[in-house]
């Protein structure tokens, strides 16, 4: 081979490796594009693959897919409770609720939907042996069939908000979901059925042609999993996907539509009250005042967040404008000075405990907290850990007496009622309470017994105001918003709980 032959050869190889293949792919990729807009399957790009589709699983990874297959008795929506598989319900005694079920509904495998099936599905999720993850969010109850279409729920304690909790208990055909909480192919009454699940690649749902409700417009939907926000956005931009779930502000483009929606996620800090540094309420209040929530929302979250004054979102009963957390660094310093003058010992170094990248930007939030504390003359260091270790610190029956931790957590309440919030973060019996208070406990117990309505809402507001003024247990940061990339080919709006009801999607 002569000298001069080398160069063309190399270039030739390079061309085959890059140019040649690219050219060939052009037509194919172009073809793909057409099918995407050609009312083929609806493609939804999710950040994570669902663990499973078990009716006992909740969470943002599972619910967007699961709730198209399984339906609950009652759906929580902007306008209150909407009957789904139950047509109506009534409280027959302090601890008993009777649900009248939709008649003539079948599971997608042809078996009839009856009170007996519903009871079996609900009781399985409530059995601790199932290890269902919704268990913590619902109260103790037992379901039994009164007749073919009457389901009786008996609760351990009087529970006036039981119908709201039923939203967390979608019904699956009992034989399809036996054993621990890991069902991958649950059979439900919903508008879609699992057609194919290729682990790591996609889940394909197809329309349930025997669906009891209105037939949805979308025939098939493919959920794909892409962890990088920029790739999800690119997929909508190129027409490969119709919905990109939660994209970063920097990935927003003019090439597709976006919708911003307030999520149920509210990051917050909790400072140990057993620690001498933060045992003084003035110090906890000072941290609240010194935290620049506007800057966090704008700078850290690129505007996809709003300052939070409470850990519950404005759509939850009990949210009140009376609780405000104005940014006042000077006032905060004065509070700390006053505490010091009274002999408060602020020399103990705080440990800011965070979970790796949860909530979003957790390490940046920790740095902001560290700077905020430093401005107040409080020393701190950051400890980052995986979820397993973090839970071990965040959820303790008894906070160790010498601990000085500020723990970053995130609150997610999908129910529109603060019962869950109060049980987890305010009542002293909970494992995540730093400032136990008997009066607060009493107020919570009384309010929980009230039926939903103005009286309950007022009682809830009072609880939060009392806690804010007398205890200052928590440091809410921001209410996170989610940005969805949406193809112009479809008509659809995101929901704050992150569920994607494919039957609500229509083609343009």
């Amino acid at each position, binding site marked *: *081979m002569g000298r001069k032959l080398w160069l063309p050869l*190399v270039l030739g190889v390079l061309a085959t490796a890059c140019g040649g*293949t690219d050219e060939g792919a052009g037509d194919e990729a172009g073809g793909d594009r057409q099918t995407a807009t050609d009312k083929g399957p609806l493609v939804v790009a999710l950040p994570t693959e669902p663990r499973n589709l078990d009716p006992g699983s909740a969470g943002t990874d599972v619910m967007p897919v699961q709730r198209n297959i399984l339906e609950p008795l009652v759906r929580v929506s902007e306008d209150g409770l909407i009957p789904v598989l139950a047509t109506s319900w009534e409280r027959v005694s302090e601890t008993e609720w009777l649900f009248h079920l939709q008649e003539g509904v079948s599971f997608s495998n042809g078996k009839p939907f009856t009170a007996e099936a519903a009871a079996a599905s609900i009781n399985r999720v409530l059995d601790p042996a199932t*290890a269902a993850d919704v268990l*913590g969010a619902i109260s103790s109850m037992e379901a039994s069939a009164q007749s073919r279409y009457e389901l009786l729920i008996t609760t351990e304690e009087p529970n006036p908000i039981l119908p709201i909790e039923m939203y967390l208990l979608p019904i699956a055909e009992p034989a399809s979901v036996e054993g621990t909480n890991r069902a991958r192919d649950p059979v439900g009454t919903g508008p879609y059925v699992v057609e194919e699940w*290729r*682990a*790591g690649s996609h889940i394909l749902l197809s329309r349930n042609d025997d669906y009891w409700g209105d037939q949805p417009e979308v025939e098939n939907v493919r959920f794909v999993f892409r*962890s990088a926000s920029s790739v999800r956005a690119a997929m909508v931009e190129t027409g490969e996907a119709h919905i990109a779930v939660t994209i970063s502000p920097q990935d927003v483009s003019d090439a597709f539509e976006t919708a911003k929606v307030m999520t149920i996620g509210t990051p917050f800090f909790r400072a140990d009250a057993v620690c001498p540094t933060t045992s003084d309420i003035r110090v906890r209040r000072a941290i609240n005042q010194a935290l620049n929530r506007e800057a966090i929302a704008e700078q850290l979250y690129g505007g996809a967040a709003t300052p939070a004054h409470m850990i519950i979102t404005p759509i939850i009963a009990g949210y009140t404008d009376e609780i405000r957390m104005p940014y006042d660094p000077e006032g905060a310093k004065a509070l700390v000075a006053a505490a010091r003058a009274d002999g408060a010992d602020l020399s103990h170094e705080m440990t800011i405990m965070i979970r790796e990248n949860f909530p979003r930007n957790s390490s940046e939030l920790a740095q902001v907290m560290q700077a905020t504390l430093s401005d107040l003359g409080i020393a701190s260091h950051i400890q980052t850990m995986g979820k397993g270790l973090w839970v071990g610190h965040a959820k303790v029956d008894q906070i160790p007496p010498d601990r000085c931790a500020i723990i970053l957590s995130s609150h997610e309440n999908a129910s529109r009622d603060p019962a869950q919030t109060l049980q987890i973060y305010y009542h002293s019996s909970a494992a995540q309470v730093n400032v136990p208070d008997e009066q607060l406990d009493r107020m919570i117990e009384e309010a929980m017994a009230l039926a939903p309505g103005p009286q309950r809402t007022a009682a809830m507001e009072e609880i939060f105001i009392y806690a804010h003024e007398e205890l200052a247990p928590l440091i809410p940061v921001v209410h996170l918003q989610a940005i969805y990339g949406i193809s112009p080919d479809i008509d659809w709006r995101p929901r704050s709980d992150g569920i994607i009801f494919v039957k609500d999607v229509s083609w343009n």
Partner: protein
Amino acid sequence: MLEFAVRRAGQSVLALLILLSVVFAVSRLTGDPANLYLPVTAPEEAREAFRQAFGLNDPFVVQFGRFVMGLLTLDFGESLYTGLPALQLVLQRLPATAVLAGTALVISVLVSIPLGLAAARRPGSLIDRLQQLVSLAGMSMPTFWLAILLIVVFAVTLGWLPTSGTGGWQHVVLPALSLAARPIGMLSQVARSGLLEQLKADHIRTAISKGMSERRVLARHALRNSLTPYLIVASDQILRLLNGSVVIEVIFGWPGIGSLTIEAVIARDFPVLLAIVFVVSVIIVAGNFIVDLIHAALDPRVRIVRA
């Protein structure tokens, strides 16, 4: 040669056993899987039931014993996450990674050898400088960044290729190119320096002075000898492809072992994690073994010294 092979095989199995034991022990130190699997709000009964169901309450020795027994029958248990048999889950994902890594390997070899040789033939020339640039860029560019760059250019801007996912052959191109960048950089450099060294050697000079044609000198004398270092580095790069595929698979939503690894690590899905370590180390150990044999076959000195 046989004795050499048997001895190497024995060493490999021992290394594998030690590795798996260490991973088993370490994976038990990183937090309670019940805390990871269940949400923060889950009550203690649910956690207890979960630990009970997966034998996480048993003493460490019992768990280890069960693991070793399972290992003998290639049974790693069920995935905590999905309930599927762990090994099956891993083996299902293996072909996707093999396709990706194989394509990347073919691209690397096809690009690096001609590029390296062309550069070595004319040191200081344009092609030589091009090779240096490609090599430096390939080795130093962060893989995820290159991947996103390729997506932006070829999928979003030009629209020639799909952004991600699986399907036809065109889905392989971008992830394989991203994955091949590093080995191309490394291997073209090795090919260049290997040939440069050979071209300076006495027997080449002799061959040229005899009047042998340049092509014959290159093909029969220089190339073959310069292949040994290339092969060693290439085998190392093949194993690194498995590594690199973690990042690439996650970005491109490629359903291979790499993305499964990330899922299993995040979820602390111990059975799957151990099955992955087992499968990957078998591949690595077997790969090293084969390379050693080839190396020994190519270079008799290896057989004598090592045996």
